[in-house]
């Protein structure tokens, strides 16, 4: 890629920052050069975030209806999934799955609850609550 061909499409995710790429100058030499956004990257980043938002909204609706645990909502809201939640808490996956069943959360021990709260970066008492909107 030539230096002047580096896309500069002002990705909103970069919030005014730019990242560094390596590209070729007009003498054929590689130089580091900034890039403030590229369509391809922006699409796939939006897509990855939208997927977590979709999962969180879906969990929010089911939790509202009592068909899912509020913990599931908080998990997706923090861009995690079952595998990641098990890895970060150090709990077995099958036990996390069990804790994610509706009605299981209020029965958790304080220690277990605080581990979830810690890895989700959410106060322990917030885990039972849902915001007004997802």
């Amino acid at each position, binding site marked *: 890629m030539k230096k002047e061909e580096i896309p500069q499409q002002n990705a909103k995710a970069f919030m005014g920052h730019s990242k560094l*790429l*390596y590209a070729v100058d007009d003498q054929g030499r590689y130089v580091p050069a900034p890039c403030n956004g590229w*369509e*391809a990257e922006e699409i796939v980043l939006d897509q*990855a975030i939208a997927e977590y938002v979709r999962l969180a909204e879906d969990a929010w609706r089911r939790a509202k209806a009592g068909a899912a645990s509020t913990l599931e909502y908080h998990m997706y809201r923090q861009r995690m999934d079952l595998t990641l939640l098990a890895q970060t808490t150090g709990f077995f996956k099958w036990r996390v799955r069990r804790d994610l069943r509706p009605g299981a959360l209020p029965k958790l021990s304080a220690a277990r609850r605080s581990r979830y709260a810690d890895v989700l970066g959410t106060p322990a008492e917030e885990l039972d609550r849902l915001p007004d909107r997802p």
Partner: protein
Amino acid sequence: MNDSAHPEVVVPYEHRQSAHCESGVISGLLRHHGLEMSEPMAFGVSAGIAYAYLPFLKFGGLPLFAYRMPPGHVIRWLTRRLGIRMRMQKFRDPAEGTRALDRHLKEGRVVGVQTSAYWLSYFPPDMRFHFNAHNLVVYGKRGDQYLISDPVIDILVECEVEALQKARFARGVLAPKGLLYYPEYIPPKVDLRRAIRQSILFTTGMMTRVPLGFMGVRGIRTVARKVRRLDPQNEHYNRLLLGHMVRMQEEIGTGGAGFRFLYASFLQEAAALLDKPGLVKIAEELTAVGDEWRRFALNAAKMCKNRMALDYALLADQLLLCADQEEGVYRRLRAEVK
């Protein structure tokens, strides 16, 4: 404010933005200690470039596509090849990890630390994902803020003590366990030419001579086959998969085209050091492969967003082209330095 509770420490450190966090941190630390080294040179000598398809490692339910060696490889192999000794510390207790970091700063030492990218408060929110092998340099502390030179960010940044501690002690795959590091001994004379040769032999061998279907150019061909055979019924998943491939290639601090441009830049530098003009030509060829990777990424992204009809065969053909071209590049490169 109580001065002893909030002492200010600033160790002079030159912030230079880089494409990739690990090669950026290590080249920055070496420069700080008097060994001038560009980021591409650090990346190339460590033999950081690779390709691997690891379907058994899932991230958000999607398989891992790696365009480089695993985290930690750059620092480990760069320092090993150059005879540099690193001091590495991990901690069981987060509070102890923070105290140790403060001690190093007080003693005038800048240190590299490994963190999760998710809990770093200065990261733009949309860029925060649970990835545990980010690297950055801490060069000071002011009040309850650490002063940070994050190699992938264009400016100097700050992060609250609490947030950095959480980021350094995130758990899960590749958990940093508070890892901090700095060079302890750098030989007065490093043999860069020998290290370059060794690393090129390693890289080219790994990319073309390992008879495993998930590594090197064989890995690219395997992925091409998988993409061609994606079930058209599963459009939502297929889009996520393609998007994930593009993110691994472009967005995760690769310097463009999945580290291919970074490595081509290394080859240019190596050509002068080894006095082998043939490498300049090979760097050009690798640049052309990188351009093809970028075209693949743009097509795949457009297909994700329905700006282009989903055409798995087209993408698979592009991947095969990348594999064929890369195979040629690595073979000629190996012959050149042998």
